């Protein structure tokens, strides 16, 4: 990763804005989908795909690259936007999201979409898959990282904590999990539906190196991911405080936009706010 400087941060922020426009456009075209959790994770995804991870479409068949697992599979739109902008498939294809015979399924599918490392959607399963990848890389003597983006809602799944125990037990220092802590899930605030706090203490107790960041502040995201990469001896989790629906005023912190498409008027306003045209 290149050294962080203001110019580069600006570029990445512009890239994030363009990915957010893709997300809104895709979900509007589909008539359904999950804007909230895609927009909260956009800055993290931008940092990973356009700065931090060493990856390219040409090397998809090789294991000698960094790997990414989207455990919160409903954030497929931002995943697809990042993949398309990285050259895994044409950007024009994004608007086929959720359509019959599209390669872009409602939730990521390894067998359908170029660049998708693993099929996800049933929550709580991605971290276990990331464990397996991290182990395999170690067995193959490849000094590569596995990044796993989790939702905060899916922390309620028991399998997450099975996976957390495993990663610590086997000292998977090449594994970096990021929790998109936007605080909302379908039925409301995470703390009302199924309280997660003290979340960081839970991860610490499970033997993980715990870092924090504002997941919507590009500079902090880059710095924290960089710090995570240096950690030795065990897995790292970054608790990323984010705003659900980030970047679109009426979607921000609005649980109603967890899994709803904007109407025409909302779409036009969202695109204006994101610095584009509808």
């Amino acid at each position, binding site marked *: 990763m290149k050294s962080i400087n203001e110019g580069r941060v600006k570029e990445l922020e512009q890239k994030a804005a363009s990915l957010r426009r893709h997300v809104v456009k895709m979900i509007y075209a589909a008539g359904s989908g999950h804007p909230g959790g895609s927009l909260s994770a956009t800055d993290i995804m931008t940092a990973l795909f356009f700065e931090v991870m060493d990856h390219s479409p040409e090397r998809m068949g090789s294991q000698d690259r960094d790997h990414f697992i989207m455990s919160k599979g409903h954030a497929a739109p931002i995943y697809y936007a990042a993949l398309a902008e990285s050259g895994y498939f044409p950007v024009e294809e994004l608007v086929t999201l959720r359509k019959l015979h599209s390669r872009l399924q409602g939730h990521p599918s*390894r067998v359908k979409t170029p660049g998708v490392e693993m099929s996800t959607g049933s929550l709580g399963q991605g971290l*276990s898959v990331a464990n397996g990848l991290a182990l395999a890389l170690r067995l193959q003597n490849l000094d590569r990282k596995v990044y796993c983006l989790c939702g905060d809602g899916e922390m309620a799944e028991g*399998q997450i904590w099975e996976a957390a125990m495993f990663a610590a037990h086997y000292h998977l220092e090449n594994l970096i999990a990021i929790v998109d802590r936007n605080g909302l899930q379908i039925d409301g605030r995470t703390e009302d539906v199924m309280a997660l706090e003290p979340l960081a203490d839970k991860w610490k107790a499970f033997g993980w190196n715990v870092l924090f960041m504002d997941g919507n502040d590009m500079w902090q995201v880059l710095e924290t991911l960089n710090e995570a990469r240096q950690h030795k001896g065990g897995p790292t989790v970054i608790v990323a405080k984010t705003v659900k629906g980030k970047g679109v005023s009426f979607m921000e912190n609005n649980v109603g936009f967890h899994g709803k498409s904007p109407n025409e008027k909302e779409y036009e306003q969202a695109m204006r706010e994101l610095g584009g045209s509808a």
Partner: protein
Amino acid sequence: MSWALESQRKNYGKALVELGKRRKDIVVLDADLSGSTRTVEFKTAYPDRFFNCGIAEQNMMGTAAGLAVCGMTVFASTFAVFATGRAYDQIRQSIAYPNLNVKVVASHAGITVGGDGASHQTMEDIALMNAIPNMTVIVPADGPETYNAVLAAAEHRGPVYIRMGRSEVPVITPREAAFKIGKATTLREGSDVALVGVGQMVAPCLLAADALKAKGINARVINLSTIKPLDVGTLERAARECGCVVTAEEHNIVSGVGTLVAAVLAERHPTPMERVAMQDVFGQSGESDELMKEYGLSEKEVIAAAIRVMERKK
């Protein structure tokens, strides 16, 4: 009949060690039952490629998937009831849907688990695994066939479920036979009735065939060791040539192998059938052979079913 007895699990352990020797990409996972499933043999031979996941079957299946994503061929083992029940969604979502190279080899299937009782027995596993697209389902009849099926599964690209019992079972298949996925084997020729056995019920089918022979009835005995893909050709031929069919399995009659055979024959060559299976009840504690008798899974029931079904031939 003087058959030698052999453990399917021990043959599994032996096959894993052989695979580990041949191939560097073989990785084995277990969920705190490595002594029972015999993955401990692999652990001893190749400790660097064995990972105990603890009592956490869901994470084990997901970890297996991740290893497979990164190019490894993974064997994941535990008791059948936990593999297919506790971790069903992980097998479906993380292994079968992405069509990954994970072999779920489960032991202690059926009711022959014995004393542990119904919580540890499973008579639903074949139905569960069979219903998942991309999945191959294999139920070897004995120790040697287990060994050969494990080698074949390692060569096959994609997810495979292999079902093993706990008990030592009669050796009825040849040791030096390559296992062909999707191919049923005819162990005995005959044209009065076809006895289609699955797993531990193949040997009782052979005993039944002997008893029927004494009554002047020539029974064909088929070892249906691959449940998916089903060997439709062999089944249809048996129905056409014998005119009636008995299936026998250590599995629930609901959505069991008998149901699959009945569906195939209904479409291709409607034939009188009888099904010997668990009658949609949970098992209980007891010795393996006591339980097989208690739930009507012995040659006695196969013989009775054969006589009944022959009476229904026109």
